[in-house]
């Protein structure tokens, strides 16, 4: 390839060909497989068939990588939680702070988990499960061992490992049996109630499903979308679209594996948006039992280990709790209890929930919200929150105008 003196111009032109051809070839190599994967054709299923197929899925063991992306249009919350009195995990007194400070840190974690984009590995084998959230230069892990009734929550950034156990002497199998017994009792009750209401014997599960679908159909259009491919698997797509225009939600989509019925992806799109506002999907999945070593965890000496027992409610406590709930449901609108109960306006997708304003940092509020007539509003692509100047909070998956309307009607009702 030494330079020549004759035909130099032509060879020079020829030599530039690879410079163009190589990027073109790479682009083709990337784009062509994407096109090819579009053609998926699974045997057709109706909505009811698809739901039953998914609910009878019997996948016991799998492992894979989950990608979560969210474009909720929320202002950057990372800075916000840092401003809330050093609740951030990086604070200097992280080692010194007591257990009571754990709550804000948990909230911090939850917010960051729900809002950002994340990659996580998930491993499941029978009663063993592990979720491994892969952060840059850090990692969070949740280990669950169903048989031994214990679990670990591990955070590499704070160097903490929380060992969650059931109280000593609890037999997980007995608990399971009890829970099942409860479920049976509830099922019996429900059956009796249905029989009393309809005056007919209990319908078959298929009929129940049809009925549930029919009631859902009043507010939501449920369809089976086009077959697609998720994590290299052929999937059915279940699409839920609100029938009303009064909501910000455009559609909910679920991908169900065409072979074994396991859900592989879920996403929520805002009305009129091309990209989902929130999406969780497998990018890789294998239905072989993962190596048992991935479930083994022994905390390193460098980690602070906290033991935490989860109290198991006794039957009496459960009954009390249930009674409390029912009492609350009965007197929801009276608002005479110590705890303020939410007022619900409207139904279906356009539901608006109203609460009295809890104490909030005013400065933080101002930085997050914008002013509208007589109130401040926080808008995201899926959820709107309105904080009125007279101390009420209204929230719903609805446009601002509807919240303002409801707020005005509410104010008129109470004669203000």
């Amino acid at each position: 390839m030494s330079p020549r003196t004759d035909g130099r111009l032509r060879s020079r032109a020829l030599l530039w060909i690879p410079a163009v051809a190589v990027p073109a070839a790479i682009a083709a190599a990337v784009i062509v497989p994407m096109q090819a994967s579009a053609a998926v054709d699974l045997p057709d299923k109706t909505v009811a068939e698809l739901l039953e197929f998914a609910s009878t899925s019997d996948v016991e063991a799998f492992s894979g990588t989950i990608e979560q992306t969210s474009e909720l249009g929320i202002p950057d919350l990372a800075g916000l939680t840092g401003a809330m009195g050093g609740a951030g995990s990086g604070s200097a007194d992280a080692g010194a702070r007591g257990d009571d400070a754990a709550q804000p840190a948990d909230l911090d974690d939850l917010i960051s988990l729900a809002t950002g984009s994340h990659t996580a590995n998930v491993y499941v084998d029978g009663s063993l499960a592990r979720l491994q959230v892969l952060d840059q230069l850090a990692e969070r892990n949740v280990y669950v061992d169903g048989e031994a009734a214990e679990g670990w929550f591990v955070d590499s950034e704070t160097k903490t490992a929380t060992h969650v156990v059931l109280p000593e002497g609890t037999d997980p199998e007995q608990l399971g049996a009890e829970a099942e017994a409860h479920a049976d009792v509830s099922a019996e009750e429900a059956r009796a109630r249905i029989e009393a209401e309809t005056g007919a014997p209990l319908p078959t599960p298929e009929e129940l499903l049809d009925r549930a679908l029919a009631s859902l159909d009043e507010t939501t259009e449920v369809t089976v979308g086009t077959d697609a491919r998720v994590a290299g698997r052929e999937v059915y797509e279940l699409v839920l679209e609100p029938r009303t225009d009064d909501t910000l939600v455009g559609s909910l989509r679920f991908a169900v594996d065409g072979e074994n019925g396991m859900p592989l992806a879920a996403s929520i799109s805002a009305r009129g948006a091309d990209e989902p506002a929130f999406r969780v999907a497998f990018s890789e999945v294998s239905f072989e039992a993962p190596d048992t070593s991935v479930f083994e965890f022994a905390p390193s000496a460098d980690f602070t280990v906290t033991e935490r027992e989860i109290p198991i409610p006794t039957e009496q406590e459960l009954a009390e709790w249930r009674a409390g709930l029912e009492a609350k449901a009965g007197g929801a609108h009276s608002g005479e209890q110590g705890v303020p109960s939410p007022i619900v306006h409207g139904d279906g997708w356009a539901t608006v929930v109203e609460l009295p304003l809890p104490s909030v940092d005013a400065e933080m509020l101002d930085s997050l919200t914008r002013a509208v007539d007589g109130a401040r509003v926080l808008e995201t692509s899926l959820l709107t929150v309105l904080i009125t100047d007279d101390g009420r909070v209204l929230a719903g998956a609805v446009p601002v105008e509807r919240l303002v309307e409801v707020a005005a009607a509410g104010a008129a009702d109470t004669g203000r």
Partner: protein
Amino acid sequence: MSSREADATTGAARDADLADAGGTTDTVRRPRAAASGTLRLLGNELATLFTRWRTWAMLGALALIPILIGIAIRIAGGSSAGRGPAFLDQITGNGLFVGIAAMTVAIPLFLPLTIGVTAGDAIAGEASHGTLRYLLIAPAGRIRLLVVKYLAAAAFCLAGTLTVVVLGTLVGWLLFPIGPVTLLSGDEIPVGEGLLRFLAVAAYVAVSLLGLSAIGLFLSTLTTVPIGAMAATSILAVVSQIVGAIPQLEALHPWLFTDRWLDFADLLRSPPVWDSFAANALLQGAYVLVFGTLAITRFVTRDVLS
């Protein structure tokens, strides 16, 4: 800058070699020996690279990072969890982490700078010394010369990352207690396995720098002023990282050669996530392919006047 003086001396020495035709190390560069193959050319290029003062000065600067970190923490005490660069807080408990902490510090700027100097100098340096045409008189071929220059730059990538990790581990060994290595997942592995993982990290980072080396080599073929190619390469590395930090440009991120630079931590998980090693190698491979092709195209069609 002393390294530039060192350059000048090396260049002068090589000119003298070529002139008196009786040199000891640069014999391959004359027509008689040129046919003896790419391997000898590569061996010679590596010998030239690693006998340069500048190369050792850069490796020394890289070595200073773990040494400074080790001494600073030894004197001032460790940091608490979550503060400072990742892994820094682990050093007091386990000295082996000095190397990894130093790597985290070196990746964004120091390593790209040294790679920028090595790769940016590859062709432009020869051109500015007036030695390029002598190299090309030999029927070694321009493409072979480029390949050899690139392989030498790649060898420097590995030398640089190994310097940081190996020296860091040794410094930590001397200054701090050592013990089983705590992984990001929260469990421990024995020291031996931990050291193997650290070597894998060095390999990962070396692979990460291959794309930048190819960019540097291409820029080096565009000019006869080596400092221009060096600066442009280093600046590109910084610009790419800035673009990678802007969320609004998220669509571009997977295409940046710096996108997976910090994913070396995937090798410190349990089980180690090798996917990112493969994805990173693919990304860097694409950059090597594109900029390698551009460099060859440019260099083969270029009029070499110096």
